[in-house]
């Protein structure tokens, strides 16, 4: 495997945008081209587009060649669209990484995009029932908020996690979001404000939920040789794992307060890189709901099982704590344009490692970061590791 680096990153403003799907793609494309001024577009040989439901929200399929046309790139090696719901963006990075690592591609572009706000908002929300098993769970109204509400209820029941602890996740991520000019929400909030916001699905209120968002984000990945020509601060992709148990429907999920798939994915990643959770400086994790981040602390091994609530209460996941979790504001502040989210997490890593974020959310001296993306009803977990230092000792395979 060859070393692969991210040499450029560009993002659009996330939010309820008066912009079409194609507008968003072009904005993100221009942003990344501007970020790597000495890159000749003609050198891009591959393109992977992360997009979750363009056929439903903008009625367009076969989107990868459309993106190539919009960005003016001629793809000669690898082109595809990736779809794994909420983690479609990280999947796009993974395949671009593999193409460059295997030597098939030298410079690959990744675009993650989603346009979710339309005139038919209840249609957008209804579309989320298709992420679970549509025929058996979707039929019972199982969209994401009720599912994660059940996870929260069980976690509170099994481990004594409190309503206030859930709210503290939003408070932290809102604080960092207030220093992120691209985030959908840039206002700080209090625990009281989170708890008193509109009830969505008890125990979760509106502020416990990430939003329905439009946005796009793009990256340029390059082989080591090309990376050296394009940037002085390559951010290396040093590893990546995914894990899905045979669990897509409720009957296969077991205890909802345990995310065994994430536990196994984290174990695999740590083994691959020969690291411990303590070695991680920055973690961008998938806080689609406040409860998600609490389970992620536990399953990623930042604290013991059941102590995720205590971990946020003690401030251990703030910048300067044991591990800086979601210093970019997370999905809760940025919003969650499904296909763009995983790419936005990588964008944050690049900006952190380059020192190009406001000091209030900057993680000083960071060397290793991970991005965790989950998809659907937390059935599938995806983690990638990024570092300022390239690694030669990574154990791929068994």
């Amino acid at each position, binding site marked *: 495997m060859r070393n692969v680096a991210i040499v450029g990153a560009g993002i659009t403003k996330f939010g309820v945008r008066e912009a079409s799907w194609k507008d968003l793609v072009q904005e993100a494309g221009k942003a990344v081209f501007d970020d790597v001024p000495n890159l000749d577009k003609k050198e891009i040989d591959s393109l992977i587009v992360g997009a979750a439901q363009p056929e439903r929200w903008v009625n367009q399929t076969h989107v990868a060649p459309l993106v190539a046309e919009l960005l003016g790139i001629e793809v000669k090696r690898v082109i595809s669209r990736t779809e794994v719901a909420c983690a479609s963006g990280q999947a796009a990075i993974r395949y671009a990484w593999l193409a460059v690592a295997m030597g098939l591609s030298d410079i690959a572009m990744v675009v993650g995009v989603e346009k979710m706000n339309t005139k038919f908002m209840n249609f957008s929300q209804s579309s989320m029932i298709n992420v679970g098993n549509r025929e058996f769970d979707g039929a019972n109204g199982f969209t994401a908020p009720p599912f994660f509400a059940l996870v929260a209820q*069980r976690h509170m029941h099994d481990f004594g996690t409190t309503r206030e602890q859930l709210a503290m996740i939003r408070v932290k991520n809102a604080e960092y979001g207030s220093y992120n000019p691209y985030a959908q929400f840039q206002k700080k909030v209090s625990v009281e404000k989170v708890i008193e916001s509109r009830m969505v699905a008890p125990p979760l209120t509106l502020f416990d939920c990430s939003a329905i968002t439009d946005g796009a984000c793009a990256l340029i990945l390059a082989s080591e040789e090309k990376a050296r020509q394009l940037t002085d601060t390559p951010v290396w992709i040093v590893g990546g794992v995914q894990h899905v148990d045979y669990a897509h429907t409720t009957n296969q999920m077991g205890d909802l307060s345990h995310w065994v798939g994430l536990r196994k994915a984290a174990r695999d990643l740590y083994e691959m890189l020969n690291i411990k959770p303590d070695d991680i400086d920055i973690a961008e994790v998938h806080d689609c709901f406040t409860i998600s981040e609490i389970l992620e602390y536990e399953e990623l091994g930042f604290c013991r099982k059941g102590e995720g609530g205590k971990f946020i209460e003690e401030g251990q996941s703030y910048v300067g704590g044991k591990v800086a979790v979601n210093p970019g504001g997370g999905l809760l502040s940025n919003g969650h344009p499904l296909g763009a989210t995983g790419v936005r997490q990588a964008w944050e890593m690049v900006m952190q490692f380059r020192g190009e974020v406001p000091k209030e959310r900057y993680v000083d001296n960071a060397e290793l970061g991970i991005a965790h993306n989950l998809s659907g009803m937390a059935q599938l977990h995806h983690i990638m590791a990024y570092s300022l230092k390239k690694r030669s000792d990574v154990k791929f395979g068994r």
Partner: protein
Amino acid sequence: MARRTLELPDSVPLSPIIDLWDQQDPDGPDATGIYDFYRNLADGELTGQKCLSCGKLVFPPQIICPSCNSTELEWVKVPEEGELYAFTELKLGAPIIVENYAPFVIAVARFGNYPENGFQISGMMFDESYEELKIGDRITWDILEIKGPGDKKRYWYYFKKL
């Protein structure tokens, strides 16, 4: 010169993609090998399957056992009494087609000795509020008749407190 116009119909039929009970048919191009699940509901029973080869319970129903690849699966009735494992009440953002029923409770219940020898199933609950339920409540399933659109009649299930 008059501009050429195309006149479109006044309305278009309900798109099947927003229909929650997008059940397959017993035959024809939309046929499914698990159609007996729906026949059983029409006959008053919520059923899962038991693999005759490896003995594992299977839910949702399938045509091949995912554990041992056997095609010999028999229908078994989901036990009538179960336990409420988790629940919430959907107050905002209900799927379009059931908006008029919101808020309604969405629950996960365990029937039999889950996971070794039982089922964990999601279901709606009506005439119940979040405040009045608690984890561990004894519940049962019952048959739900879905009427419409038009003459269409389908069968599903829901949960109720015992």
